[in-house]
């Protein structure tokens, strides 16, 4: 019975080929430092899942954002846990992505033939920082409001383009409902879409070239 079901699926999905190409790959001897990439991916998934739960109750408007988060923390069953994981997951993700970058740098894994993997990785690092920056404003509390005021001001100090960048980020001269709305849009749609796309390419390149090995004295 199970065999039949498996054969039916195998015929249509090609599970065997998937297993051979994705899972049963040879790899150089690795150690625990090699788990940082998959840990980043795991955190991305965790942040995605908890983030989706949070959007069920969160309202991106200055009048309701703060109260909706208070409600998530006090009113919703296990809301505090979901938000807590999302909050700490963000910090942990920044650390792990950064240490992953350092590991690749130290072992010179970015060299031929993995230059593109590195480029995409830098894109992922910057997008992750972007997620941190946009997500920080969403609770609409004092810390968030003033940190974003200063953060966007810094972005606005670019010569010539500064004014434009500032207005584009804030949706006007000051932080307002528009700022919150567009930070929210960036945080839940634009940046995650970019991250997911780049992660796909990053993974494809890793499977294509394999994980790099640790260099020895003659390399």
């Amino acid at each position, binding site marked *: 019975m199970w065999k039949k079901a498996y054969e039916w699926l195998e015929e249509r999905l090609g599970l065997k080929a998937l297993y051979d190409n994705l*899972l*049963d790959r*040879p*790899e*150089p*001897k*690795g150690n*625990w430092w*090699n788990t940082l990439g*998959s*840990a980043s991916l*795991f955190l991305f998934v*965790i942040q995605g899942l908890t983030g989706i739960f949070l959007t069920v109750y969160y309202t991106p408007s200055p009048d309701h954002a703060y*109260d909706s988060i*208070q409600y998530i*923390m*006090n009113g919703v069953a296990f809301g505090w846990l979901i*938000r*807590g994981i999302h*909050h*700490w*997951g963000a*910090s*942990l993700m*920044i650390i792990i992505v950064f240490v992953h970058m350092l590991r690749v*740098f*130290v*072992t*010179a894994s*970015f060299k*031929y*033939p*993995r*230059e593109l993997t*590195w*480029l995409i990785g*830098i894109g992922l690092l*910057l997008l992750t*920082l972007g997620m*941190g*920056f946009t997500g920080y404003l969403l*609770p609409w*509390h*004092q810390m*968030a*409001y*003033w940190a974003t*005021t*200063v953060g966007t001001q810094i972005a606005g*100090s670019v*010569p010539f383009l*500064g004014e434009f960048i500032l207005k584009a980020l804030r949706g006007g001269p*000051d932080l307002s409902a528009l700022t919150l709305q567009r930070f929210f849009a960036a945080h839940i749609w634009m940046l995650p879409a970019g991250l997911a796309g780049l992660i796909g390419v990053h993974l494809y390149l890793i499977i294509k070239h*394999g*994980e790099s*090995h640790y*260099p*020895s*004295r003659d*390399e």
Partner: protein
Amino acid sequence: MNDETKKQINQRYERELQRGERFWPDSIFKDVIVSLAIFIVLVLLATFIGVENSPKADPSDTAYIPRPEWYFLFLFKFLALYGQIPVLGKIEWLATVLVPAIGIGLLTLLPFIDKSPWRYYTRRMLPLTVMGIIVFDMVLLTLVADIPTVSESGSKLPGILQAVMGLAIPGLALIILYYLAYRRGDDNPVAPMLWTSGLAAVLMVGFAAATFVATPPVAKTEETVANTLIEQISAGQDLYSVHCVECHGDDGKVEKIEGVKGLEGKEISPINSHDVLYTLNDAAIAEIINYGRPDAGMNPFGKAYNPEGLTKSEIDYIVIFMRYNWDDRFEKPVMKPLFPALAGGEVPSYDVHIAPIVKRYCVSCHRAGKDNNNFLMTSYQEILTTGDQADKNLVKGDMNSYLLQVIQGQAILDEKGEELIGVMPPKGHLPADVIDVWIRWIMNGMPQTAEEAAALYVPPTPVPTPTPAP
């Protein structure tokens, strides 16, 4: 890179694969363990540390000191230190745009800058030491982020120490490293470069320690944030008792203001009525408190219009308090008592009992700028030492203390029989248990802390139960 090198690299990799492991199950196994560990750490952090709360955003509160998320703190500090540099420091965009752009640019283009095929660590001393110094600097800048650049006494020493630590030493080290690498050409001078970066790191730690010694970090201002509904209602009630009671009365019933300078006799709508509570939503009530309705006699209480004003969060708490107390569509949760009930013989303390009572019933008038015979009650010291009758207001162990007389309905009269101090509170009475707390506190020597009060505890003599006559 020519084809020959590429071929060598690929062959080398093939050999490594031969004596390597399988992705499934060897690598996946480690990945799963790490992911699981991360998940557990996240759940523990969320459960036992939780998320720090902060009051609601208040655009009018420009005195708020901004502080970014911790992973941007190093940039924040870098900008502050850079701003101290004479002349160059005034050109802001050099630090805010150019330096980060160069950093990110170099990092991105790394595979195209470092094109040598060498991978072993001793052959890559320059990139490794440079990156090491920069990352180390980022960590230290994050650690000293909360230390101000100008000390309280106005000395610029901490700023200079930090600039030496965060800018000068790493900058100098980078220059020396580049010099060492280029003087020797391809042959990497491992030892001198390690010595340079090691020495730089030690010096940086030294200066970081010096900044910590010279100026301790500013203690973060404690912000009390009411998290639960009960805390919010109670915070709202305290604020209402201080800011609103004078005109609106403790039950919001007042229709004609009495005894308030400038607003005497003004007719107002009772704020506990259906008229107000059913027709104004939370946002509207909050705006009325914020902007006021000057023509109708309501002063603005928002921070932007009133130096002693309320923040957005505080205004929200007052609105919540009004809803849950007077709006019959809202069911008030079971509130915690204002102070823990006293057992027989127990002595109340200022911290636990008197402070919340004073806040709820007295501070509204007994604070600076009000008509109160100079008797201020916002702290323990003030209660004991201020007031025109300071020596008679609260006398240890004296039932005739003025305070005890007036709260029990005895006005204090002077020799001519004129009223010196009226009955307190001027309208209404204190609940009996509150009066009891005051009496016990003053009669037992007015202890400040709970420990002092506990030391004065006299266990009540047990009342002998009369044995029933046979």
